[in-house]
Every structure is written in structure tokens, then in C-alpha cells.
């Protein structure tokens, strides 16, 4: 290839790169501050990542549950307008499976995540982190997963192994072979 053609080719590559970069970024939006991110970054990983400081006991959870949760979920988590939270272990392979925190939920930290972000339904994100730990502990105790004197915090909640943890499988679809 002649030197001139090489130079043209090189120029074209540079021009294309510049054009691509210009297309890629528009300079829209502003930097998110660490404080802004900290305020909204509420999701908890299944291994307990991002669980906040604080702790709560089953005993405290019983009180909070009676005040905040029982009206919809029943005094013992048996369900009413709100989902049933307790029982059903051993029913999943039966004709009448009962999906609850105890029988179905694979990860305990998800309980903290969901209660904090979405419950109680009439006032989500109103409970203190301590009370969210406490209600989580109470629901897990109702399901026989933690003891009546348990106190849960980031470390102990993440350390719980839920009964149904190993039962989830990847999507195998298409699963009907009709042609």
C-alpha cells in the first residue's frame, strides 16, 4: 500500500473514532453525590451485602408486628388481606403448595430488603432499621427458622440458611416440544 493511502486510512480511522466518541457521550446529567447515592441505595444482596447497622430481637418484632403488620397478615402471620407469611414447609411438591417466607423464600436478607422498602403497605420506609431487623426476626421465628431469643443484625441475618434455598433452577424454556 502506498504511503499516501496509508495516511488517508489512518486519518479515516481517527475521524471515525472521534465521531463514535462524539456519538457515545452527550454530557447529559450531573454527577450523583455519595450522599445522594447512600440515601437511595437500599437494595440488599442475597448474601446480606448492604445491610445497615442495627439489630432487632424476636420479642421486639412481636410488638412491632402486632402494631404494624397483623391487621393484614394476621396475628401469627397466617394471612388475611395480606399474604400468608408462615407455614407451608413440605407442601411445595404437593397438589396444594403453600408459598410463604418459611416454605419458599430462598434468602433471609431479602426479607429485610422487602419489609424496609415496601412494608407496611400504608407507610413503606417508615420503620427504623432496628424494627425491620426485629420484624424479620419475628417472622423467621414464627416459621421455626430462628429461636425465640434470637437477635438479628447484618451478620446473623446473612448467616441464616433458608429451607428452600436450593430449590431454584434456571429457565429451561422452551419446555413443551410439540412440533
Amino acid at each position, binding site marked *: 500500500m502506498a504511503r499516501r493511502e496509508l495516511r488517508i486510512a489512518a486519518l479515516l480511522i481517527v475521524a471515525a473514532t472521534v465521531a463514535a466518541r462524539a456519538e457515545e457521550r452527550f454530557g447529559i*446529567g450531573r454527577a*450523583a453525590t455519595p450522599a445522594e447515592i447512600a440515601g*437511595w441505595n437500599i*437494595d440488599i444482596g*442475597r448474601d446480606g451485602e448492604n445491610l445497615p447497622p442495627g439489630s432487632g430481637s424476636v420479642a421486639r418484632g412481636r410488638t412491632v408486628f402486632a402494631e404494624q403488620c397483623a391487621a393484614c397478615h394476621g396475628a401469627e402471620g397466617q394471612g388475611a388481606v395480606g399474604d400468608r407469611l408462615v407455614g407451608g414447609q413440605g407442601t411445595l411438591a404437593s397438589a396444594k403448595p403453600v408459598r410463604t417466607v418459611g416454605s419458599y423464600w430462598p434468602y433471609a436478607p431479602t426479607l429485610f430488603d422487602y419489609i424496609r422498602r415496601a412494608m407496611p403497605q400504608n407507610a*413503606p420506609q417508615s420503620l427504623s432499621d432496628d424494627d425491620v431487623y426485629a420484624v424479620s426476626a419475628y417472622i423467621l421465628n414464627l416459621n421455626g427458622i430462628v429461636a425465640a431469643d434470637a437477635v438479628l443484625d447484618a451478620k446473623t441475618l446473612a448467616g441464616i440458611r433458608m429451607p428452600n434455598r436450593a430449590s*431454584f433452577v434456571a429457565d429451561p424454556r422452551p419446555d413443551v416440544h410439540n*412440533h
Partner: protein
Amino acid sequence: MSEQTTDKRVREASRRHFLQAGAALAGGSAVAGLGGTTALADNGANLPPNVPEWMKTPGDPMGSQPYGAPSAYEKGVVKNISKTLPQYISASGRTPLQELDGIITPNGLFYERHHGGVPTIDPAQHRLMLHGMVDRPLVFTMEDIRRFPSQSRIHFIECSGNPVYTKPYGKTASDLCGLVSCAEWTGVPLKTVLNEAGLQPGAKWIVAEGADAAALTRSIPIEKCLDDAMLVYSQNGERLRPQQGYPLRLLLPGFEGNMNVKWLRRLKVVAEPVYSREETSKYTDLMPDGTSREFTFTMEAKSIITRPSGGQKLGAPGFHEITGIAWSGHGKIKRVEVSVDEGRNWQSAELQEPVLTRALTRFRLPWQWDGKPALIQSRAVDETGYVQPTLAELLAVRGANHFYHNNAIWPWRIDGSGEVSNGQA
């Protein structure tokens, strides 16, 4: 002013109805007007050779409806919302599929599913935060989002539980498949916005979170985010309705409805899914052996005849068009086959152009009904070659407690009087 004029006109019209129809009762204006019109139609006063009453007086003045609404005679065409739900904060309402034509769902009839009610969001105070495994964590206003180069695309959204597998099965097309709707969406490709922040190596998922009272959270594989995912702010030409995520929604064409996170406030780029409640305890599919499928994203090919369909009646033997909708989360509909003889023979229906990827496709088949009982049904084939299964085939693999992703064929039974009912019931 104009309202008073309209009221006066309606009152006068209804007075004439009563006089002409010889009605004995006098009363309210608008309602009586409707009743009177029916009476007039019945006695032929508005039919040829007579001049219809609505040609003898001016119609409603400009401005009587600053935002247009359907005719009063279409007041029955509304969302199909069960009256017996345990509660209405986390609930769904269905599109009346059997009342609609074409492939675009009117915004007011687009199906709804929300998990913490419909929030009222001031767009000036709404923010989208993009953070996690990115070079530059960013915050966007709605004005920012609308500055990006925009795109419009037509896609369906379907709830994953549309319908469930257990009896009682619904009576109408809406009861069975009304948790699917289709619209033209306008917004910005998600990959364009992600480029603004710069993805870091190892970014595999994006956690999307809504600004509703459920702060609904789902994890989206990065491949989808860099493919056809969009951040949308308009639907069928106007801003999103509150029920559809105003002011900003994540659109994931072909993925189950709840992943199309409404009221989108946050995108967090991560290495693995967050395993939120909605993707562990909720939208997972229980198998007969007690295991559950997780991350079951794509809505498989499906179709349903919307006319004639359950609850309707064929007036007389003779020509009837069979029409319905087909769709697939895996791409375009390649073919829709219709059977009118209990599934013995199948013929290809005509597909109305445009046939778009991951959009509703309208199909039609001309049919001569001989007046005898018949079972009619449709099955969709998409561009991957996937064939819509029967309910029996699905139940054999998944069992009745699978709950989600039921894309079965739904046959309609037509009896000798023309009444149409669910062929599975």
C-alpha cells in the same frame, strides 16, 4: 359557558325525545337523552327515510371536551377489574381485548398491574439515579432524559400471569388474556444512557427500582440492557399515564410485564442479580416436583381469537370474520393458524401488516358459519419456529400450580344458537 350551552341543548333534545316518543315520564337530562335515543331508534324515527334527530340540531361546541373521551354509547368499554379482589393496592386490571381492533391499545384501556398503588409524581421532582459499576454515577432530571436522541417503537407488554393455570377459567378474551396490551413507546435506548455513565468491567446485571410505594425492584441482564431496552416517557404520542409509570418507565420488549419497571427512579449496575422479593418469592414458577424456575423473563408466543369470543353471540349463520391477536417475546409472529373443526384441520390466517417484532399482530380469517356447534381456536408460530402449545401440553410439563407464563391455546365453543363460551370450561 360552553357547559351551560351543552346542558341546555341536551335538555332540549331530551324534551323532544319524550314528546316524539310519547313517553309518560319526565326527568333528568343526559341520561334521559340516551334512553330517549334508544326509544327513537326502536321506532325508526332516526332511520331512513327519516332525518336523524342528531342532524337537526348543532352538536357539542368546541371545547366541551378539552381532552376527548369515547362516545357515551361506548361507556361499557372499560378495563376489566374484578369486584372481588382481597385488596386494590396490589392488584391488576385487564384490557377489554374483545372490544378492540388493530394492534394498538388505547392508553386508557392499557392493562394495569401495580404493587403499591399508583403514585402521583411531579416530574419536576423526579430523578433517575444511575450508579454502581459505572465510571461516572449520574443523576438525570426528566428534562435531561428528554434531551437524549429519541426513538419510537411499537411493543406489547404482558403480565407473566395471563392467565394462571387453575380453574375456574375466564369467560371472555379479557378474562383469559387481558393482561396484554400494545403501544407505541417513545424514549431513549437504555444503552445510550449507560454510555453516559460508562460501564465498568464485570457489569453483568442492572437493578431497576420504581419510585412507587412498593419500590418495586427487578434485576435485568446486561445483554438486554444493551440490546433493545429503552427508557420511555411517552405512550401512543402522549406522556405516560400514571398507571403506566409516569414520568419514566423501563421498557424491556418481550420480557414479563413486572420487569418493565414503572416510575423508574434508580438503575444500579452490578455483577449479580439482587434476588429481590419480586424475583425470588413472587415471579418464580413452581414445578410439580417442588423446584422453582427463576429468572423466567421472556413471554413465549401466544394468540387468542377476540371475535367471535366468549360472551359474544353470532347473530345468524353466514359470513363471520374470525379475528384476533398474536404476539411473541422472541420476535416476530411468522404464522397464525386457525381451526374451526375441533382442531382437526388448521389454516393460515391473514396477518395484518405491519408485523413487528415483539408487538401484537392482528390476524383474520374469513369464515362461513353453518349454524352448527363449532370449536374455533388459533395457534401462533413465531420466527424461531416455536408453536403455541395446548393447555394440556403445558399442564403435562409444568403442572397446575406453575402460575406464570401460561401461553396456551384457548378454544371458543359456539353453540347452535351462536352463543360463544370458553372451550376449556
